[in-house]
């Protein structure tokens, strides 16, 4: 009884301090429900080429996890396996299990379209819909999924733009085309568009790589605030960025997950030599 109590207390204490919590990758069954996303033996294929190999990784709810690694190591491929976008590439397929909230999204009865409503994605290059206004861009996911209630749409659009830290800049020109914004604003528009679907998980593939430092830091700030409500997985080439925004870091190399741990641990005392060499900029 006493032991259980202390265990509970420890768990609830660490709840709000994910940064300081060491991840236990091989955690026992009792706490597996705490993981928002469980990646189990996932392989990603392009034709007969295996771009990611038997990746196992558990992502905690409401944390930021960074995927890092040299170009071509499979970060994008892995990310796209998590909302079943990978299989949209002609000739590509994935196997293994990706369990989100206890449900395997690769299960037989699962419709990938429904999965993608719950798992949002932000792409490397901002891609607002060119024929739509700022407002319509954010409303697109709602409307095209059948939402008709204008009051609700209006409310969600405003809230999403606020959450994406874009509201103040665009609130007086919502009818202007989405393409009329700057690159950084367009990327935040795309984030707002994803947030409007109220995703539980947000996948971001190098969201700042086409932006200047100011645009980048806005998005980094955004990522840090968003994790209060969303589980975020972010691919980045920028080591400092990974260190700044993420709680956990996964290092990949040639399609393998080499090391996964708290960002502090990966950057301060990596266990694998390869990780250490990459972090310190000796290759990549």
């Amino acid at each position, binding site marked *: 009884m006493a032991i259980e109590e202390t265990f509970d207390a420890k768990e609830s204490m660490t709840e709000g301090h994910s940064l300081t919590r060491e991840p236990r990758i091989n955690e026992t069954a009792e706490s597996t429900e705490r993981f928002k996303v469980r990646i189990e033996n996932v392989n990603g294929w392009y034709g007969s080429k295996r771009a990611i190999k038997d990746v196992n990784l558990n992502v905690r709810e409401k944390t930021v996890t960074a995927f890092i690694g040299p170009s071509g190591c499979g970060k994008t491929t892995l990310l796209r396996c998590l909302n079943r*976008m990978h299989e949209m590439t002609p000739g590509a397929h994935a196997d293994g299990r990706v369990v989100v909230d206890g449900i395997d999204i690769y299960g037989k009865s699962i419709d990938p*379209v*429904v999965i993608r*409503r719950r798992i949002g994605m932000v*792409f490397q290059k901002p*891609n607002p*819909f060119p024929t739509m206004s700022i407002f319509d861009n954010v409303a*697109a996911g709602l409307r095209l999924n059948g939402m008709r209630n204008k009051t609700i749409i209006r409310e969600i659009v405003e809230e999403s733009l606020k959450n994406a830290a874009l509201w103040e800049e665009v609130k007086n020109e919502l009818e202007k085309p989405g393409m009329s914004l700057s690159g950084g604003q367009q990327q935040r528009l*795309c984030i707002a*568009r994803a947030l409007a679907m109220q995703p539980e998980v947000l996948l971001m593939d190098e969201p700042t790589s086409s932006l200047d430092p100011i645009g980048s830091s806005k998005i980094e700030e955004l990522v840090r605030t968003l994790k209060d409500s969303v589980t975020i997985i972010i691919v980045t080439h920028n080591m400092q960025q990974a260190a700044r925004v993420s709680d956990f870091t996964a290092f990949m190399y040639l399609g393998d997950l080499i090391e996964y741990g708290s960002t502090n641990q990966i950057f301060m005392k990596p266990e694998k030599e390869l990780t250490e060499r990459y972090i310190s900029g000796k290759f990549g």
Partner: protein
Amino acid sequence: MTSYSNSNKKYSKILHETVNKNYRKRMIINKLVTVFAIVCVIAAIIPLGSILLEVVKNGASAISLEFLTQPQGSIGSGRGGVGPAIQGTIIVVGLASLIGAPVGVLAGIYLSEFAKEGKFADSVRFFNDVLTGLPSIVIGIVGYVIIVLAIGSFSVFAGAISLSIIMIPIVVRVTEETLKIVPYSLREAGHSLGISKARITLSIVLPSAKNGILTGIVIAISRIAGETAPLIMTILGTSLFFTGITGPVDALPLRIWRLASQPYESAHAFGWGSALVLILMILALSVGLRFLAQRRSFKVAI
């Protein structure tokens, strides 16, 4: 590092020499190509311009309210007008477009977004191309045999079907090609929001390709509006106004052809007038559709 900058220096001299030596030559070639391009543009515009000029010069005087609204008076009298032909062209071409444009656009969407590769899509593309190249008189004969003989009368219906068969392959091709240019990243963004494929196609991809597809439709309509051969086989041509969808009707190209083969001055003047009216109608259609496309309220209504 040192060897790299050394080799860089080693070649920098020869690089500069080559660039400088070729500079004058390139300037001259540049000028020649520009001049050649301008000559080609002029060569393309001259016939077009002179045709338009000739039509306006000969046709403008024939046009009057009577000409636009009345049926033709007795042969050689120079009285009346080509009202039935104008009305017939609007009805037959309009009906053909109402059939041809949606079918063509949908087939183009199917090829670009859903079928993509595969035996079936490839054979559809092949037959579509064959259809594009088919002489229009052949399509007229088919319309005659299948529809005119079946109904037992030359008819608006047979003409519209024949013209839509000419229109469809053009629209299919243009739609497919235009949709292919729409960046994949837009479709991807749609998928990432959990939007169904049909919805993405109709509400995201299609609006992005709207202008290109509309241009294709205008070109196809212009093409069928000037068709004569298939209309001889299907609507026949009369000097009376529209009587019904299963009855014969007149059309401007037919009227022009008939007027041109009459030996009277006044008939020839009417012919030129009809040609001018036809050109103006196509121009108005083209400008009108473009204007409509520019307006924000004109969205694919789905």
